[in-house]
């Protein structure tokens, strides 16, 4: 310790000229305020801005110079023997010189910064908009990194050894390995996790560089080349250990199974047994994982590069999915991938570049896909040939909702809700209806539907002729209309003023969920004017989950403590099954979800994904009541 202090003292004494230079520079901001032209600016602003820039620039530049010279110069000028011929340990030499360098940086920074800061601390806070301790920590960390990297490169390049080629190669490998460690975390949208891992890796690298000098000098001593060999060996072996630990951690993070998800969400298509299972992974901070998951068998396929169903679309039969894979978490566009939903399936790139926020829908026969990107451009692609068949700009400004589907393999119908800018009423919107014909490549405006609220939903009958529109106002009360799905012309008015939820059934009836004093009632309004009521009971919240064969509807309801699943026979006005402590994990049957607005009757063996309060995922058969435990989260 005494010897390290002796060396630090010696090195500091050597740098008197550096401190004098800093003191001279510290006057510059004050002189600048006297220069004509600059006098028009606020005097304190000029002083604090210039003072800070000079302090930071000088300190960082000095850090690099000191890093390159503090050991490297003595080695290359064969003066390291001066220390090694004395009773001084290698670590005392290193830490003494390092302490002197750090102190030199601190003194230089203080000499330059303090006078200008004192001249206008309030102005400084306004100009830089950063807390002083944070600013110091930032400059200090960057300066320390420059100092240590300067030493690393100084030792390596001053040795003039062929080993430099190996060092450069290992630097590249290390850089790639670091990317390889952090990138998978970002692909799982674990921004905070990636940030912490990056911080930990950076701290570990700085620690290696902090210690490497002592090791280098203890093994290489006064010999320039042996110093280089010792340094390289220490740095790269330590780096390999750090990278191995980092790599192992990342491998552990990314090797997530569906059971590792913490309260996952489920996106389930109307048909098929496969669904998307996604959410944050346990003990992995904000790292997310997404799986295609077979509710029938428990098979799963991990999908990287997307965070949730927002960027995906299931085929009508539930056997395929398309999704947007972003090259990195910041990317605004990526490639579209098609994946068959089966065990061991591999996704196939469609070579279609899509911006974030795009929506997709399959043709019923599964041979074509239509997509609308964030610019409002509709394009249709043939999946077999991967060729674009048509492309058209939907001529609507400020569109906030887009729903579309294949009326036939050659015709795509689009519903676009847009504010009526010409209207005097701020809350007036319209839904514009278009059709694109692939045979004629023509875009036709087929109709308009006027609505009074931004909260607008639409579902379309399976044959594409009728649509149920829902407009929900700020009180939560909905107004529904049955309209011609192609022209937007009103067919039947709102069935109930107390309606909260509604659904268009396969036979053209409209089902509503109405609430009176906390009591919920399912009402099915027949196309012939008939009404069938089924009491649901007291619930806090309810919504439609699915329509089943045999005039049955599945409804999710939240009681005082837990959710329950209710199977209602609406033709007979009775509840045929009530599954307590069960909640449909996926979104419902309602008008708000999915790009394809059509709703259909679920197949008899179609399971519903649901979870209980113990966070267990089940595949539930609502017709039989059979329940299969799949995953304990």
């Amino acid at each position, binding site marked *: 310790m005494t010897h390290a202090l002796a060396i630090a003292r010696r090195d500091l004494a050597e740098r008197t000229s550096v401190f004098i230079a800093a003191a001279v520079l510290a006057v510059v901001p004050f002189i600048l305020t006297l220069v004509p032209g600059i006098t028009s600016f606020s005097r304190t602003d000029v002083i604090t801005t210039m003072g800070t820039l000079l302090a930071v620039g000088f300190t960082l530049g000095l850090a690099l110079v000191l890093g390159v010279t503090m050991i490297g110069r003595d080695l290359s000028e*064969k003066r390291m023997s001066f220390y*090694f*011929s004395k009773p001084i340990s290698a670590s005392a030499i290193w830490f003494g010189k390092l302490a002197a360098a750090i102190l030199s940086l601190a003194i230089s920074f203080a000499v330059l910064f303090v006078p200008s800061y004192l001249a206008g601390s309030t102005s400084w806070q306004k100009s830089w908009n950063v807390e002083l301790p944070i600013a110091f920590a930032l400059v200090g960390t960057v300066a320390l990194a420059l100092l240590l990297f300067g030493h690393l490169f100084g030792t390596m390049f001053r040795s003039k050894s062929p080993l430099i080629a190996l060092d450069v190669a290992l630097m590249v490998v290390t850089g790639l390995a670091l990317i390889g460690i952090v990138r998978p975390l970002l692909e799982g949208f674990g921004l905070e996790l990636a940030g912490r891992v990056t911080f930990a890796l950076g701290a570990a690298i700085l620690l290696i560089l902090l210690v490497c000098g002592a090791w280098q000098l203890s093994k290489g001593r006064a*010999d320039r080349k042996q110093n280089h060999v010792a340094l390289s060996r220490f740095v790269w072996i330590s780096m390999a250990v750090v990278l191995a630990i980092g790599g192992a951690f990342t491998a552990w993070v990314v090797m997530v199974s569906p059971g590792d998800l913490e309260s996952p969400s489920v996106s389930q298509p109307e048909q098929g047994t496969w669904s998307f299972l996604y959410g944050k992974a346990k003990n992995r901070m904000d790292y997310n994982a997404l799986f295609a998951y077979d509710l029938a068998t428990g098979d799963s396929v991990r999908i990287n590069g997307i965070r949730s169903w927002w960027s995906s679309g299931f085929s009508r039969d539930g056997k395929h999915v398309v999704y947007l894979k972003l090259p990195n978490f910041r990317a605004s566009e990526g490639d579209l991938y098609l994946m068959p939903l089966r065990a061991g399936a591999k996704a196939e790139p469609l070579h279609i570049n899509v911006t974030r926020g795009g929506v997709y829908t399959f043709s019923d026969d599964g041979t074509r896909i239509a997509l609308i990107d964030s610019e409002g451009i509709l394009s249709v692609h043939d999946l077999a040939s991967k060729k674009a068949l048509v492309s058209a700009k939907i001529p609507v400004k400020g569109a906030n909702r887009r729903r579309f589907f294949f009326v036939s393999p050659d015709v795509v119908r689009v519903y676009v809700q847009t504010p009526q800018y010409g209207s005097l009423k701020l809350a007036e919107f319209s839904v514009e209806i278009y059709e694109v014909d692939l045979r004629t490549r023509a875009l036709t405006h087929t109709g308009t539907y006027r609505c009074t609220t931004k909260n607008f939903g639409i579902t379309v009958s399976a044959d594409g002729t009728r649509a149920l529109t829902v407009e929900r106002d700020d009180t939560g009360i909905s107004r529904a209309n049955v309209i011609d799905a192609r022209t937007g012309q009103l067919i039947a008015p709102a069935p109930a003023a107390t309606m909260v939820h509604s659904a268009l059934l396969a036979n053209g009836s409209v089902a509503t969920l109405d609430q009176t004093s906390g009591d919920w009632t399912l009402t099915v309004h027949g196309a012939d004017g008939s009404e069938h009521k089924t009491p649901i009971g007291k619930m806090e919240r309810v919504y439609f989950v699915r329509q089943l064969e045999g005039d049955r509807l599945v409804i999710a309801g939240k009681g005082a403590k837990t959710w329950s699943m209710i199977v209602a026979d609406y033709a007979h006005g009775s509840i045929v099954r009530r599954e307590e402590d069960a909640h449909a994990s996926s979104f419902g049957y309602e008008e708000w979800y999915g790009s394809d607005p059509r709703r259909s009757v679920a197949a008899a063996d179609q399971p519903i994904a649901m979870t209980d309060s113990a966070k267990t995922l089940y595949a539930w058969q609502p017709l039989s009541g059979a329940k299969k435990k799949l995953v304990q989260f």
Partner: protein
Amino acid sequence: MNQAETPAIRIAGMTVRYGRRVAVDAASLEVPRGSVHALLGRNGAGKSSLVRCALGQQRASSGSAEILGQDSWKHRTHLMERIGVVAEEADAPPEMRVQQLADFNARLYSRWDGKAFDARLDRFGISKQPRYGDLSKGQKKQVSLALALAASPDLIVLDDPTLGLDVVARKSLFEEVIADLADRGTTVFLTTHDLAGVEAIADRVAIMNGGRIVLDEELETLKARFRRIRFSAQPLALEAASFRTALVRSWGAGTEAIVSNYDDLTFERLRSSATVQSADVSAMSLEEIFIAVAGEGTKS
């Protein structure tokens, strides 16, 4: 072996390689305590590499070095408390003043003798104010020597200490400083080109040639066994007399040889052999021996 019997320096089978070049080739050497041991060799013979490795400043490719009975690589820090070193090239920071160098060293050595340092500088006629980098080559050597000696070392290692010194300073170094150290029982190990100077004070001499130690013995023994012989016959007569030759060349109609195992009896046998009509022998200076051993065209 007690501590007094342990050599001040023991080098065993030391090899130093720089890439493919072998600077020191399996060198072994012992420096007895209290002796003045000179290591001689031509430029590039490997002396400085051997000294650096012996001092633990550089790792030898193989072999070992002990100083004062301890491994000099492992125990360098501790050992340097008892060793004074004057490096071949001036290695002190050039921006430091002489006084600062003294202050710096004073913090490092428990046996630092500031008065001795001041006195020695006075004798050298060097002020403490100049920066080390502003001193002449000879003055730098003198300051380094004064610093090394002020630490009151048990062993002093001088790597070519007369390099850059004028004749007076060189004479002073050998005759006063080193002789004084020897008188006080301090072991002195030096490498030098100044053979005349070292001849007067060295107890023991080693010669390096091509990285190998070709000779390591008491100076008196060395000088006793090396002789120049001139005789009127062919070189074969030498072999007949069992002389080992370091150098053989024609001398007029006869032969001049430098033999490394001279003794009077053998010489008489040579002189009295039938083929030799006349023969005379002369003693050799250390410089002559060195040239014979390490000069070009010699058998090493």
